[in-house]
């Protein structure tokens, strides 16, 4: 492949932030001798804990502020509580959370149905955009799936008919 040379000095702003001292451990952290003071800073006021907040067991308590989105609920919530019994260093922490995420998708569908709403999965997946910008690929995928499904149905019917 041919190398297209670019003359750096022609690039707008070239070298304006060059810093020879940044090699290679320029302090990303601005050292302030606070390294060894421990958990001693004056903490901001505590946000009232009005929802269930799971906190990592690598911390003593809940942080001064936190998000209140979607507190743990149902089976996925139980799995999440289980995960938080283990440290962030353990698969025991992450695997229940991954599983809980999958369970909560099913819980989400149930919740929609309970509210009388059938989720429009096609719209949620942005099929309108696919139809506008990627039509041939979309049609091909739909056809391939349709062929696979009808083949599977035909096969199962035959087996059932035969036995």
């Amino acid at each position, binding site marked *: 492949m041919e190398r297209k040379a670019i003359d750096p000095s022609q690039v707008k702003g070239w*070298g304006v932030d060059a810093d020879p001292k*940044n090699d290679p451990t320029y302090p990303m952290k601005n050292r302030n001798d*606070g390294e060894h003071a421990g958990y001693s800073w004056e903490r901001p006021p505590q946000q009232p804990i009005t929802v269930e907040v799971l906190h990592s067991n690598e911390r003593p308590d809940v942080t001064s502020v936190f998000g209140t989105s979607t507190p743990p609920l149902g089976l996925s919530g139980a799995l999440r509580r289980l995960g938080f019994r283990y440290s962030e260093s353990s698969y025991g922490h992450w695997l229940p959370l991954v599983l809980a995420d999958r369970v909560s998708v099913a819980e989400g569908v149930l919740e929609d149905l309970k509210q009388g709403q059938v989720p429009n999965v096609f719209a949620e997946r942005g099929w309108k955009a696919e139809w506008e910008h990627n039509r041939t690929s979309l049609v091909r995928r739909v056809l391939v799936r349709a062929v696979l499904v009808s083949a599977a149905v035909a096969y199962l019917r035959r087996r059932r008919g035969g036995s």
Partner: protein
Amino acid sequence: MLAMNYRGPLRVRIDHKPEPEILHPQDAIVRVTRSCICGSDLHLYNGSVPDTRVGMTFGHEFTGVVEQIGEQVEKLKVGDHILVPFNIACGTCVFCQQEMYGNCHESNPQASAVGGIFGYSHTAGGYDGGQAEYARVPYADVSPTVIPEGMDLDDAVLLTDVVPTGYQAAEMGGIQPGDTVVVFGAGPVGIMAARCAWLFGAGRVIVIDCVDYRLEFARKYAPCEAYDFRSLEDPVLFIKRTTDFLGADVCIDAVGAEAAGSALQTVLGRKLLMQGGAATALHWAINSVKKGGIVSIVAVYGPIDALVPVGNVVNKGLTIRANQASVKRLLPRLIEHVQNGILDPKAMITHRVPLEDVSDAYRIFSAKLDECIKPVLIPPSART
């Protein structure tokens, strides 16, 4: 209010949700005016970040007008139009005091390894984000910044993440004048990293991706050499050959968990979720850099282990530098660069989409349709 609502992998929609309230004396509530979708959101969208709960609103790159403030907010006032850095930072913990605003210890109860981030799963604090009409902004006096007069909103919204992240990627590379810098990934972050590599004095900048229109965009915007890894039989070997068989001085990973290019990594990291994502680009970065070189990682991976050639890190004597961008630390310099015309972030925005069409916007960005580089969502109140 209208808000994006995550329903499961690849499923997002717009819904009505209650408006956020002040929950802490240092909170502000903003009416959102611009809100981007980021490559980081794609990790959530694909279901690869643990503890991403159905019902959450994403969005960590937004601007907005202050509607309400808590009783301890002193610098901001109602009516201010602000840009909101993606990190939630208290300003008082030891890490914030050291300007590590991406590593605040008082904003994320769920994980000690990362600070709070708006709309970024419970692993980053469980905050509903800015892809909505309104958002709650904690520690409003610390990171949020009044948009300088005359600055375009599209530039302002990119200063909340993409610009500082690309800039920090180059900064962490410790680039010395004349260095050859290779950036993996020609998404908005990679493109900005390539652009900024020049600011630190790079002598040669190479971008690697597999999406033609993005390579083309990078070539002009950065400007740089840009290559499609699918047409290179082995990207590492290509970089070795083009650098006298020594390797690049600096390699930047701006791809992350969704990387393509290795069947093994894809199966383990993206299909089975047994890794914190596919570490293909990081693997290439480690193997393409010169002995004693620097690998700078801004790409995001899940919290579980990922396969990388650690033996080579040792044998080659590499320095690895990585972090979430410390947006507040970098803002003064970057605002200057935008105002002086050195950086032109808004040229990266290819799609301006009504908030209501969030499902399509995610699809377009994620599937790289319609030559999308960066989409921004615009709520109804900001469209008049």
